[in-house]
């Protein structure tokens, strides 16, 4: 970062909300990994823990938004300070959404525990979740380091998750066609996969915010898309 502010309270305010956003990031990553583990290992206790843990994530989000509003009102941030506050607010929103997806995954995994497993799909979901969490954690690291090179790499890497999602979509479709009894489980697994894919989009969004924070503009070039599902029939 740059030199410190003349008003040192301003530095403390900015550091405070950024620390909270990182804490939130840690909770979201843990929730996603735990939910995916609960799904694969059919661990009901762990799934319930994730469901309950979402309150803490929501609470942090609210705290961050309130704090950012106060900073805007009190400090009238400009230039990179303004971009920092705006970025923190957007990061908090993205993480809160991602936390909701983790909670949803946990809920659906509880339903799935009551029905017969479908092929190896839960394993794939867990691998996908690990990949997404890696993306998220890299994006947050790039944010802390204000590293645009890394942010651009993360942005380009999202296609890997999209491809995994497309593969899983086809796999689940096949199961459902072969045996209608797998439809309930397959539908839930599909929503889970779609939600994880969306978390990946949020991670990409965070990487884009890093670029905005450092350069003052969002990247304008379209990133490569490899999600063929929206076109398949």
């Amino acid at each position: 970062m740059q030199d410190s502010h003349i008003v040192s309270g301003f530095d403390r305010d900015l550091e405070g909300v950024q620390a909270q956003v990182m804490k939130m990031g840690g909770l979201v990553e843990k929730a996603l990994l735990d939910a995916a583990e609960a799904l694969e290992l059919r661990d009901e206790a762990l799934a319930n823990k994730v469901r309950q843990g979402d309150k803490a994530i929501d609470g942090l989000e609210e705290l961050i938004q309130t704090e950012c509003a106060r900073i805007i009102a009190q400090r009238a941030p400009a230039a990179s300070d303004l971009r920092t506050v705006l970025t923190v607010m957007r990061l908090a929103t993205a993480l809160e959404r991602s936390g909701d997806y983790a909670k949803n995954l946990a809920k659906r995994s509880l339903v799935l525990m009551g029905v017969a497993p479908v092929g190896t799909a839960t394993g794939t979901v867990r691998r996908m979740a690990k990949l997404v969490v890696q993306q998220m954690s890299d994006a947050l690291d790039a944010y802390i380091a204000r590293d645009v090179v890394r942010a651009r790499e993360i942005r380009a890497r999202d296609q890997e998750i999209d491809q995994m999602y497309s593969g899983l979509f086809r796999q689940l479709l096949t199961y459902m066609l072969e045996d209608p009894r797998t439809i309930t489980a397959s539908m839930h697994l599909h929503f889970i996969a779609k939600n994880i894919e969306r978390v990946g989009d949020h991670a990409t969004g965070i990487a884009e915010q890093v670029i905005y924070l450092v350069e003052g503009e969002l990247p304008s070039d379209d990133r490569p898309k490899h999600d063929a599902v929206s076109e398949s029939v």
Partner: protein
Amino acid sequence: MNDMRIADRTVDANGIRIKASGVQVHYGDSHAIKDVSVDIPDKAVTAFIGPSGCGKSTFLRTLNRMNDTIPICRVQGNILLDGENIYDKRVDPVQLRAKVGMVFQKPNPFPKSIYDNVAYGPRIHGLTRNKAELDGIVESSLRKAALWNEVKDRLHAPGTGLSGGQQQRLCIARAVATSPEVLLMDEPCSALDPIATAQVEELIDELRSNFSVVIVTHSMQQAARVSQKTAFFHLGNLVEFGETSQIFTNPKDPRTESYITGRIG
């Protein structure tokens, strides 16, 4: 991009009122302004910001030759108002100041009536032929300065009896009475309370439909609120000049960044 508020703030790049190039100002041995070139747009508010002693007020004063009154002050370079060099020997500084009006930090009404304060400029420049015309100018100037309704019943009361904010608007009315093209304001709100400040800021926004306004301010929030263009001065240099929205969200120069974010720069 069809948002009216955005369209409203865009500045017509072709309408340049003042073109300054390679301006240097020395006070004796001290080099106060170092090779400053800037285009001041017409029908827009341009804000000059920068730390104390950065040269913003000095530069503002070169725009209507206020520095002529300081014997040790030397101005070099070109300042063109509508294409004419204002430092040309044939230019009468008094006439120039009728075209380029100035409002100062502290309200400084003449110890005369409200009416005479506003009528002073038109009288000495012989802008009117009779009392009715002069009355018309006084009224329209006070209206432009958003003061008419408050003073119309006591035009012959002393100007110094008004409140600070009213006195400042009286000074603005006095400045616009000679139908200037450019209005220079040197920290016009620093002696006013927030309400009077808001009134003067609202006035500045209205004035820009008729004038080119240049304002020096220590309040960056004020610059962000009232101006369309912002120039950042530092140690006598013009560091950065651009759209106000760009300067306050994404300045290009690290010195501008340090200054507007309140860091040690």
